[in-house]
């Protein structure tokens, strides 16, 4: 089932902060965050794993609340280059050996626009 993102759109001025939320109705193994600019490929930002491990972008942070099955992406001191559509992807299973990954299901996206 598709995770739900909020808000659907955000408009900021340079230097302002934003938070994008992602909620799942199923227990999560991991949450992935991607950014896609218009007409381009989605680009990996961040992955948060069950158990608290976090890897990703140095200027963007995220949290993962396993109990609430939610993740939030924090963009601080936004830059013009942050504009784009942000997708969270939820993964609800992985093989027991951890060597293969289950299905990654993406949310509907949050459109972020940063103005000068």
């Amino acid at each position, binding site marked *: 089932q*598709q995770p739900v993102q909020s808000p659907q759109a955000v408009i900021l001025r340079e230097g302002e902060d934003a938070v994008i939320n992602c909620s799942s109705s199923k227990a999560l193994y991991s949450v992935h965050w991607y950014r896609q600019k218009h007409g381009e*490929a*989605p680009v*990996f930002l961040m992955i948060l794993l069950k158990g608290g491990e976090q890897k990703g972008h140095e200027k963007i942070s995220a949290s993962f609340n396993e109990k609430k099955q939610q993740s939030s992406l924090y963009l601080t001191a936004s830059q013009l280059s942050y504009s784009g559509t942000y997708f969270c992807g939820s993964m609800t299973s992985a093989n027991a050996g951890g*060597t*293969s990954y289950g299905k990654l299901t993406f949310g*509907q996206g949050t459109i972020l626009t940063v103005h000068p």
Partner: protein
Amino acid sequence: EAGVVQSPRYKIIEKKQPVAFWCNPISGHNTLYWYLQNLGQGPELLIRYENEEAVDDSQLPKDRFSAERLKGVDSTLKIQPAELGDSAVYLCASSYRDSTGELFFGEGSRLTVL
């Protein structure tokens, strides 16, 4: 390092015509994905390969869609016959099997069915 390469970038066809998309993943990536992205929506998984094996094709409409990944490298996604509702961007992605799970996407193939 070269990224995921897809072709064609754009394709316009009439309904009921066949169409094929090609994907060359990043060298060494064992896992390959085909996603469908409708305008204003997130990518939806069509099929996932690990090497030559399709490990998840539950979302692939098998009556008209087919895919193959010969020799565990390049992959082809085919639609025959195409319908108006198939107009979308078809994204290919690849990843290391035992990586953090990061997916590397190609720029996609935009299909317009008239």
